[in-house]
């Protein structure tokens, strides 16, 4: 039972449910109370102890159904026996064949696997597959390319070699029986392949997901394929959650040892000023105020999309965000982003200002004219764009005024450093007024950039 539960925990982790050691101990204790006999109760018990949210419950429920559609756990016992028996048989074929010759039906001299297949005992075969997959440690399977090697390992553990010898012998002596055995072997291969596929579905999900995410994190945002966009959004949401957990700490922190005399006196007025309750001075922490200017012209649009998605899912960490999108002129898009789903919002923004040829100068003029008042001395201004202004006046003087009115001005450029300043790139002229300029082409760089911005407020 323990072995089975452990394997289930691994499968649960693969399904994206966080199972800590402490939780697995709790689950074990609970299962010890209810027993494994009643499937429905077992399912409820595991859902109660392991899953900690509605999403996890759904995932774990699916995982449970998949896991326990495998051979029954209680077959552990006989299967271990048969395994031992088969090993015996391998070691001393002469004695075993002598002792079992009494059964008569399958001819003498056959290995245990051949006998099992010929007798068509489906339960025994299933049990043998289960025990062999245990021996081949199927739960270590990680990638779909490993299916072949695990299949052959399982077949080897079941005694394929012996079976082949038997087949060779039989073809000579008893062709009809050999034909039957060959058919049975094909069926066995298929069954093993199914088992391995199921094992892959159960155990490999976590690893495969990690690998895919790793690749995705380092892929240039501007060039990801259409089918990956949804995955990327999920990844960005994950990043947002991580940043939220890290930075959404309480905003007031007591400064130990600094008595707030005024508040202490006021609070203890009821007891004649005898200080029963003490009040300490607090330090107030600001949450970031962010003004984001995003270039949404063709080349940079994708990066801006993910950046806006990230910034706007940081509600708990960031006090207020004003987002502006521009290509040839600039509009405020905070409301669109807040009210609509990411897909709809981006579509609307694109239809309003997107895909034009970018004109940084006139966009900055638009910003100065209408929105300069959004900047306060606590604001961080983030500009996301490639600074390619099609040889129009860059109006770097406006950027200087923006920089003077805010705490910091961060420029995120999706292009590599090498390209800055070449062609129509105005990056060097803008860079003089920025506190930080950094490249930001992949999800990982995006995460770092936002994390650094938020961290300076802590």
């Amino acid at each position, binding site marked *: 039972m323990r072995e089975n539960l452990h394997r289930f925990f691994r499968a649960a982790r693969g399904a994206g449910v966080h199972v800590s050691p402490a939780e697995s101990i709790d689950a074990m204790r609970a299962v010890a109370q209810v027993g494994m006999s009643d499937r*429905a*109760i077992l399912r409820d*018990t595991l859902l*109660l102890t392991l899953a900690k949210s*509605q999403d996890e419950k759904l995932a774990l429920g699916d995982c449970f159904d998949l896991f326990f559609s495998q051979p029954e756990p209680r077959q552990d016992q006989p299967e271990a026996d048969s395994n031992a028996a088969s090993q015996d048989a391998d070691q001393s074929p002469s004695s075993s064949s002598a002792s079992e010759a009494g059964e008569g039906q399958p001819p003498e001299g056959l290995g245990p696997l051949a006998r099992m297949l010929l007798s068509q005992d489906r339960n025994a075969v299933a049990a043998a597959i289960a025990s062999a997959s245990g021996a081949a440690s199927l739960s270590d399977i990680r990638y779909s390319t490993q299916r072949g090697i695990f299949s052959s390992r399982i077949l080897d553990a079941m005694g394929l070699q012996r079976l082949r010898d038997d087949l060779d012998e039989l073809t000579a002596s008893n062709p009809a029986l050999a034909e039957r055995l060959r058919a049975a072997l094909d069926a066995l291969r298929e069954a093993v392949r199914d088992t391995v596929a199921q094992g892959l579905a159960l155990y490999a999900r976590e690893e495969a997901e990690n690998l895919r995410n790793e690749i995705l994190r380092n892929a240039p945002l501007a060039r990801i394929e259409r089918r990956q966009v949804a995955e990327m959004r999920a990844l960005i949401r994950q990043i947002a959650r991580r940043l939220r957990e890290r930075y959404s700490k309480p905003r007031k922190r007591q400064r130990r040892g600094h008595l707030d005399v005024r508040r202490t006196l006021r609070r203890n007025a009821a007891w004649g000023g005898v200080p029963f309750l003490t009040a300490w001075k607090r330090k107030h922490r600001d949450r970031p105020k962010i003004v984001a200017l995003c270039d949404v012209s063709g080349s940079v649009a994708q990066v801006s999309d993910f950046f806006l998605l990230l910034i706007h899912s940081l509600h708990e960490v960031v006090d207020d965000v004003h987002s502006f999108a521009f290509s040839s002129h600039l509009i405020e898009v905070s409301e669109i982003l807040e009210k609509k789903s990411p897909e709809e919002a981006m579509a609307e923004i694109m239809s309003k200002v997107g895909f034009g040829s970018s004109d940084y100068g006139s966009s900055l003029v638009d910003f100065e004219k209408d929105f300069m008042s959004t900047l306060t001395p606590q604001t961080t201004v983030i500009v996301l764009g490639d600074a390619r202004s099609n040889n129009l006046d860059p109006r770097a003087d406006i950027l200087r005024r923006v920089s003077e009115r805010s705490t910091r001005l961060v420029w995120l450029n999706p292009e590599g450093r090498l390209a800055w300043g070449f062609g129509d790139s105005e990056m060097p002229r803008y860079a003089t007024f920025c506190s930080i300029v950094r490249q930001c082409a992949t999800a990982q760089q995006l995460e770092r950039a936002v994390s650094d911005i938020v961290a300076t407020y802590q």
Partner: protein
Amino acid sequence: MAEQKPSIAIEAVESGLAAQGYIASRQIATAVYLSQQIEKPILVEGPAGVGKTELAKAIAAWRGMKMIRLQCYEGLDEAKALYEWKYAKQLLYTQILKDKLGEVLGGAQTLHAALAQLHDFGDVFFSKEFVEPRPLLQALEQPGGCVLLIDEIDKSDAEFESLLLEILSDFQVTIPELGTVSAITPPTVILTSNSERDLGDALKRRCLHLHIGFPEQRLEERIVESRVPGISQTLRRQMVGFIHEIRSLDLKKLPSVSETIDWARVLVLLQASELDTDIVKDTLNVLLKYEADIEAAQPQITTFIAKAARSNVFG
């Protein structure tokens, strides 16, 4: 025998709760049984009005235990949840004992001796006598055990959550001046949450996690039957069917079980024998709490009643 026991025990929980008028699904009963067996709190999540708080009340009534309720809100702190010193009493006693104090201290020859004696008094004034137990401490001090309901934990601050951890895992609290107070009998702890904010992993880890959603039609009928006995079977079926149709709409606040029960009471009061468009229109405000929701549901009423009636024929 040992294999059979749990399922019987879980059924016993189910029927025990049913006797108190709480119709529990199998999952709920399993959670209650397990929390008793492995002594773990239950964290109940779900939309408002599906009977999270009722569950605690039903367990208390069924086991014949006292229920202690702690309603959480923003700014709830130790002093209101755990314990507080009785300042007024301490002050009063120092006043009354002034003479006595003088007497005792008068005996001291040096300042040091007086100070040493004064130290002893400090311990006297910070003893159990002067502790005002708040719900959490009360729950630990019940000799016969109790049901501790920590309601709407998601409304409290993150700091308060951390305060709870000691109680939830070890059933004890540490009071700096007195030491550790352990539970005489571990209480059955039920925490409820409306998922207004995500609870910390540390808290979740210490609890069994139970999600109560809207019940299935059959179950909801049974709930109405037990809560509003006066209602006829046809009407009960029709109204529950109708509510299930309403829940398929995209509304601001879906009607939950408590609204179903209220509505059943209203229908009984109005002596309705069957659902018809007029009576539904007149009483829709019992089910739906937002003007926009009522407007969204209005045009669908006739269709829904027809659907609910039709499902009766086959069901």
